[in-house]
Every structure is written in C-alpha cells, then in structure tokens.
C-alpha cells in the first residue's frame, strides 16, 4: 500500500456518533440540573404536613426529551444548516438569502388570509372549535400577524434602515391616532375607539416612553461618560416626590414643577457626584447603589413629609398649559370646552404626547451636547480619564455635569410619572427599576439613542405584551399566568442579545465631527469606561 494513513486521521466521528455522545452529555447535565427541581416537589397533605412528592417520570421525560432534541440537532439539524448554508460561518448570523427564502409573497398572502379569516371569526371561535382549539387558533393568528408585519418590514428594509429615526418619530407621533381609529373601526363607534385605546396608549405607549426617557437619561451617565450608576432610580424618585409634594401641598402647576423637579434631581445628582468623584468601576457602582437605597429609605422613614410607605395620593393632574383641564368637575374640562363626548382617553392621549415631547427633548439635548465640547469630554472621559487631565479637561466638573444632566432627565421623568399615576409610593423606586433601566441601556448599545429606544420597546413592550396572551390559559390550563414568566423571558432575551451582539443592538458609535465623511466607529474600539 502506497498510502499509509495514520490511524488518528481515520477516526473522524460521524454525525451520529458525535450526536450520541453530545446527547449523553446533555442528558447528564439536565439530570443534574433538574433532579431536585423536577424530580422532587414539596407539597402539603390533607393534615397540612409538608411531604415530598416524587416525580421521577416527569424528570425522565424531560431528560429523554433533551437527549432526543440534542441528538436530532447534532445528527440532522447541524448538517442540514451547513448544507443549506443558512448560518454564515464567519459571523454566525443569518445571511440575506435565508431571509429572502423565509419571507415570500405566497407566504405573506397566506398569513394575511389566515389573519383575515380568524379575525372575522373572532367572536364565534369558541363555539366553532371549543375553548382548547380556539386558543391555538388565536395563537396562530398572533403568529400570522407577526409574520405579516415582519414581511412588510423586511420588504422595506433598506428604506427603513435609511430613514429609521424619521420613521420612528412619525410612527410614535401617529400611534394614538392609529390606535383610536383602528379600535373605532373595530368597535363601530368613536367612543368605543377611545375607550379601547386606554390600554394601548397607557400600558404600552406611555409606559414604554417613560422607560425610553429614563434610559436616555441614564445613557448620558453610563453610555457617554462611562460612569456606572446603579442608583439612577433615586433621581426618578426625587423628581416624582418633588412634584407630588409641591403639587399637593402648594397646588403649584405641573408646568412650574417640571423644571423644578428637574433642577432638584440635578442638584441631587451633583450631591451624589461629589463623594464618588474618585471612585471607579465596581466601587462607584456600589456607592451609587447605596445612594439609591438611601433615598428610598429616607422616603419610607420620613413619615411627616413623605407619608412613608403609604405614599402620596391625590397628585394633581397635568393641565393643558392651563387652558383646559382634565378634571371632569372643572369648568374648563376639555370635553366642555371643545364640546365633545366625555372620555378618560383624552388625558391619556395628552400624557402620551407630553412624554413623547419630553423624550424628544432628551434626545435633542443629548445629540446637541454630544457635538459640544462637554459631550466630547464625557466620551473622552469614558475612553481615558488620565489623557483627559493631560489635555487640561477639568474631570471633576465634567463628571458632575454628566451626573447632573442625567439626573435632570430622571427628575423630569419622575415628575411626569407622578402626574400620570396620581399616586407615588416608595414601592415604585426599588433597585429592580434601576437594574431594568441599566439593562435597557446596555442591551440597546451604550451611547446609541436608537438602539436604546428599540431595547426599551422590546423589553417593556414585550413584558407588557405577555400580559395580553390570555389565550395561553386555554392552552396550558387556567392556572397558567404568562406574566409570571416575563422576567424569565427578560433574562433569556438579555442572554441571547449579549451572546449575539455583545455591544447591544447598536454597537457602533456615531462620530460627532468629520472631515470628509461620517463613518460609524465599530464597537470594538470604544471603551465602556472604568467608572
């Protein structure tokens, strides 16, 4: 034999062999993970004693399912993906060809047809199919709607990419109008349209926009200046309580108290800034975290002023610049002035546009500041503080302005929050809020306004949307409450995004000045800052 192949080279595991091995590993890991979670369950018996329920069959089923899944993926899924060239080897992302195969006109027409049929039958689904199947039908309808929307987005992708900000602002500005009109068509009357729009405008629109504003405010501190702030919610609380206390005690208008709340939050931003000037990284994060807790505990315990955990209620509503009021009993109630039907939706729509305006103000100021020396100094501070000092930049004032500006927008958002809720209590300003806002900033891509807005929409809108999935109850039984799983999904989404795009949705950085052409700076060059 002329060819003498070494024995090691001959042993190339076939996919089936590899899959068997991987399946065994996966099964072992799952067994180890779930033996206590699923295999055993604590319960109470009739005489209220704690007993252990053994569920070995369930555990066995889970382990076998995992092994089968892993086996099928390695033995068939991976070779199939490789053959179809679905995943791009270099980037791990889906190439364009797959998307064009996935979004096709016939599929789109089919999706539209499914949506149309199921929407027409919406009222009689339960009667036709029974509650169980009707649940699946609604799920299919939701998927078809998502698919249809995704197809439209995909078809116009280059246009959307080119005009993303303008389209986004236009969509946000027309959102309440569209919601009201669609619901009015659906219910057959304008009043029904307004009534139905409450949930969509308040729970989705306003809620998301508050978080967009908070995240854009925190973006100044974390994304631009690179100072990791875990206590941002403290400024939100300061703004909310400033409006709640001054509004209820002195009856001052929202339009006076909005700047006052911003100024007060900015003041506390500077107060926080001074002691933490010398701290960096983890130490800074811990101190800001403590600051957030201090503010919350002061609010809880300073009962004479803040009414403790009971909170402050009866916070005055925002007026339409003093011209029209949203209180039914007032003589200048909006419905009376404009001579239209009475509805609570006007206030929500007004609040929606108010928070949209505040968000746009935040974005405008951030964009403007980035092109000014102070904004560049913030980013330079994130990149290298020592170099900043060697160039004559006063890092003390630069850090303090970053804290103050970020806190000011937190204060604005806080006073808006108080006006919208009509009630504030320390419950709203827990550490989890800071963590969510920070998560939105990191997910969106630090420093990028568009990415952060998208992240807020996905995270807040997504968790709100889970509340809407009532049909899942029919699938999984009446005990199933989808909103309990939203934090799980929140975490999963974060893990997935961080694995695929470690720098967030928009990892690149837009330069603030250019000589010849503006080119985005890849995220691999920018630094996160060291505190």
């Amino acid at each position: 034999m002329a060819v003498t192949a070494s024995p090691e080279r001959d042993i190339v595991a076939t996919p089936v062999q590899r899959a068997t091995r991987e399946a065994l590993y996966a099964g072992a890991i799952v067994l180890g993970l779930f033996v206590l979670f699923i295999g055993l369950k604590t319960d109470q018996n009739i005489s209220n004693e704690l007993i252990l329920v053994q569920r070995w069959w369930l555990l066995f089923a889970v382990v076998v399912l995992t092994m089968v899944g892993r086996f099928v993926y390695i033995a068939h899924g991976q070779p199939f993906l490789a053959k179809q060239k679905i995943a791009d080897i270099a980037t791990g992302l889906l190439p364009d060809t797959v998307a064009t195969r996935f979004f096709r006109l016939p599929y789109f027409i089919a999706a539209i047809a499914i949506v149309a049929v199921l929407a027409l039958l919406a009222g009689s689904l339960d009667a036709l199919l029974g509650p169980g199947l009707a649940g699946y039908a609604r799920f299919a309808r939701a998927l078809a709607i998502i698919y249809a929307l995704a197809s439209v987005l995909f078809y116009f992708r280059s246009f959307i990419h080119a005009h993303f900000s303008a389209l986004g602002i236009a969509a946000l500005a027309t959102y309440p109008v569209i919601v009201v009109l669609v619901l009015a068509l659906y219910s057959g009357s304008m009043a029904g349209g307004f009534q139905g729009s409450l949930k969509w405008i308040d729970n989705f629109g306003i809620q998301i926009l508050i978080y967009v504003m908070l995240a854009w405010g925190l973006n100044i501190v974390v994304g631009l200046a690179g100072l990791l702030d875990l206590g941002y919610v403290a400024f939100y609380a300061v703004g909310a309580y400033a409006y709640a206390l001054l509004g209820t005690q002195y009856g001052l208008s929202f339009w006076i108290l909005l700047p006052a709340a911003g100024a007060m939050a900015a003041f506390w931003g500077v107060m926080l800034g001074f002691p933490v000037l010398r701290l960096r990284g983890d130490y800074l994060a811990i101190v800001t975290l403590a600051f957030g807790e201090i503010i919350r505990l002061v609010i809880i315990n300073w009962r004479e002023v803040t009414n403790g955990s009971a909170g402050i209620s009866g916070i005055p509503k925002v007026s339409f610049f003093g011209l029209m009021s949203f209180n039914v009993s007032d003589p200048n109630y909006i419905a009376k002035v404009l001579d239209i039907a009475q509805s609570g939706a006007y206030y929500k729509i007004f609040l929606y546009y108010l928070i949209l305006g505040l968000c746009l103000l935040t974005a405008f100021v951030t964009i403007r500041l980035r092109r000014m020396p102070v904004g560049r100094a913030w980013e330079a501070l994130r990149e290298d503080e020592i170099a900043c000092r060697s160039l004559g930049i006063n890092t003390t004032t630069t850090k303090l302005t970053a804290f103050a500006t970020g806190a000011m927008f937190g204060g604005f958002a806080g006073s808006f929050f108080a006006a919208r809720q009509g009630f504030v209590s320390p419950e709203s300003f827990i550490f989890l809020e800071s963590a969510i806002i920070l998560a939105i900033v990191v997910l969106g891509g630090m420093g990028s306004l568009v990415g952060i807005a998208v992240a807020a929409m996905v995270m807040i809108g997504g968790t709100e949307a889970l509340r809407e999935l009532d049909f899942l109850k029919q699938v999984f039984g009446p005990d199933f409450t989808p909103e309990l799983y939203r934090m799980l999904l929140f975490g999963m989404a974060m893990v997935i995004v961080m694995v695929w795009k470690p720098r967030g949705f928009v990892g690149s950085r837009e330069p603030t000045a250019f000589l010849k052409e503006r080119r985005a700076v890849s995220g691999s060059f920018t630094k996160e800052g060291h505190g």
Partner: protein
Amino acid sequence: MSDASPSMNEAILQVEHLSMKFGGLVAIGDLSFQARRGEITALIGPNGAGKTTVFNCITGFYKPSEGMLTLNRRDGSSYLLERLPNHEIPARAKVARTFQNIRLFSGMTLLENLLVAQHNKLMKASGYTVLGLFGFSGYRTASAESIDLARHWLEKANLVDRADDPAGDLPYGAQRRLEIARAMCTGPELLCLDEPAAGLNPKESMALNELLMDIKDNTGTSILLIEHDMAVVMQISDHVVVLEYGRKISDGSPQAVRTDPRVIAAYLGVEDEEVETVLTEVGDEDVIEQLDTGPDSAHGPGTSSSYLAGPVTDTVGHSEGERVTVSRGASKAGQVDARSSAAAKPASPTKAKPKAKPAGAKSSAAKPTTKAATKSKTPGVTNRRGGRK
C-alpha cells in the same frame, strides 16, 4: 560651572531641588535642571531612573515631596507647577504631555481626538455649553476654527487621510504621531514627550524626528523628551540631562554627555577592569571639564539628600528619619565617582578615605587604588579638580 546659567526668561522650565518620595523609596532626589526656551531638552537614563516620575511631577500627576518647578510663559507670567491642580497645568501653564503607553481616545476618530484637546477654548466659545446649546454663531465659528487647527496638525502628522477613522485603528507609529498632534492642539509652550520613539521602526523614527524639528522651528514650542533611542536623542536634542536612580549624573550638550564616563558607566555598567580604562580615558581634558559640571562627592554641598551625598552606600537621610538604601553600590555612576576619588587617595587621603571604603563593596578598596596609583594621570585629575574649586 561650565554652563553659563541662562537668564530667567531664557529658561522655560526650571526644576529646582525636586524630590519625590514614595513611602521610603526615593524616586527623585534633589534634582535641578533647566529647559531653555525654543530648545529640545532630552531627559535620559537607564530604566527606573525616575524620568517618568519627573514628567509626572511636571505635569501635575504627582505632587512632588520637595522642590520647586517654575514655568515661565512667553508673555512673562510664570507658574509654580507644583501648586497648580493637575488639569490647570495644560490649561493655564500651557504644558502638554504624551504618555509612554499611548493614551488615545481609541473609540473616537482622529479628528475628535484633536477636538477634545481644544476643550477649554471651545468651552469658552460655547459659553460653557449654554450658548452653544441654543446655536449661537460664536460657537459655530469657533468650532470651524478648531476643525481647521485639527486639520493643520493632522497634515503635519501626515494623518489627514485617516481623519475619520477611529484612533484605535491606527498603526503604532501613527498613534504616536497622533498623540503628539493632540498635545499640540492644546497650544502648549512646553511639550513633554515620554519616549516618543519607543517601538518605532527607523523610518517611523525619522518621520517623528522631522515632526519634532518642525514643531521646534515653526511653533516656538519648547520640547522636553524622555528617550531611550540615542539616535533620536543625539540627532535632535540641544541639551541632555542624564538621570540615574533619581539623581542627575550629567547635564550638557549631547556630545558632552555622550563622552561622560558616568553616563557610560550608568548605561553600560562597569567591571573592575573596565574602571581602569574608563578612568584612563577620563584623563583627557574634555571629560575632566564634564566631570566638573556638578557638585562632586568630595567638595559638593554634601550632607543632605543631595545626589552624590553618599555614592558609596547610596543611603539617603529620609525626612521621617528612617534610612533608605537603594541596593548597595547599585549606582554605576556612583561607582565611577567613588573610584575616581579612591584613585585620588594619594593626593588627598583624609578626604577620600571614608568614601572609598564602602566602594570596595564590589571588590577590595585597595585594588583600584594601588592600580590607579601606578597610573600617573589620575592623581592629576583630582588635583586639578581640587584646585579649581
């Protein structure tokens, strides 16, 4: 002294009796030198000699333990650098610096790097952000001017084609040039460069030399640089200060410093045998002149923590009273001095004896003495020296 001391306005930077102590470690001990306006002054010395510490003191990153750093600006005002806060040294005293390990804003474009350097000017023009936020025209013109200045320095550094690329994307040599361009955008009167040629290939080194000469000739900015690349130092510098273990061992023109035996010893180290040859060479007139530049062990002011107070034990009286020893006999220049004074023993035995004895820590004190005694030239050196004082 061989150098005629320059008049006050001629010296842009005067370092007087600078000491920097970290706990018990004396990084710089009683260092004094001057950097003259419009010249390139090089600060050289072996690794760990305290060069970067001197820079950090000058640019305010360290507060010196003792001493005075005076910067005289062109308009006649002068600043005591040790009293200014860190960021005001570039802003008010107009001292800019670069770093040994390059510190660029790597995620920002080249242009942005240079615009950040013009922060204070632009801050003023934008009315501390307020006017600029509302789009007043004053800021817009200032902004356009700052971009023109940045373009000017990018052209000088030969980087204008890459102005819109992130700084972290540049090759090493270009990053060095960009850092210098960034420092120049602050409009400095004294530019402090910490090893600008480190890690550069000969071609890049040439480009750097041209840039530095251009800065010196066309902007009137004086340059103080730390450098290990002797080709660069000898080619461009007008004045060289040599440090070893935080003490100045030589000070003068590049040619003079090059032949200074203490400098040679500091860089190359001295074996017992080589001391002979070094000392023999020392015998010629030029080098003797050089040896006279500073106060020497035998006749200098002496008792304090002055740089050659104890060349043999390398012991420094510390302010807290503890005694700090920088590894016995570590200073090579000190050894040369010690040996020359040991060699002078026959001429002035009483003075030299206490100094010479610990010098023998390396071998025996007597050995160089006896050998030196056979050489007729060496006692002459000491005589002349003593005579001149």
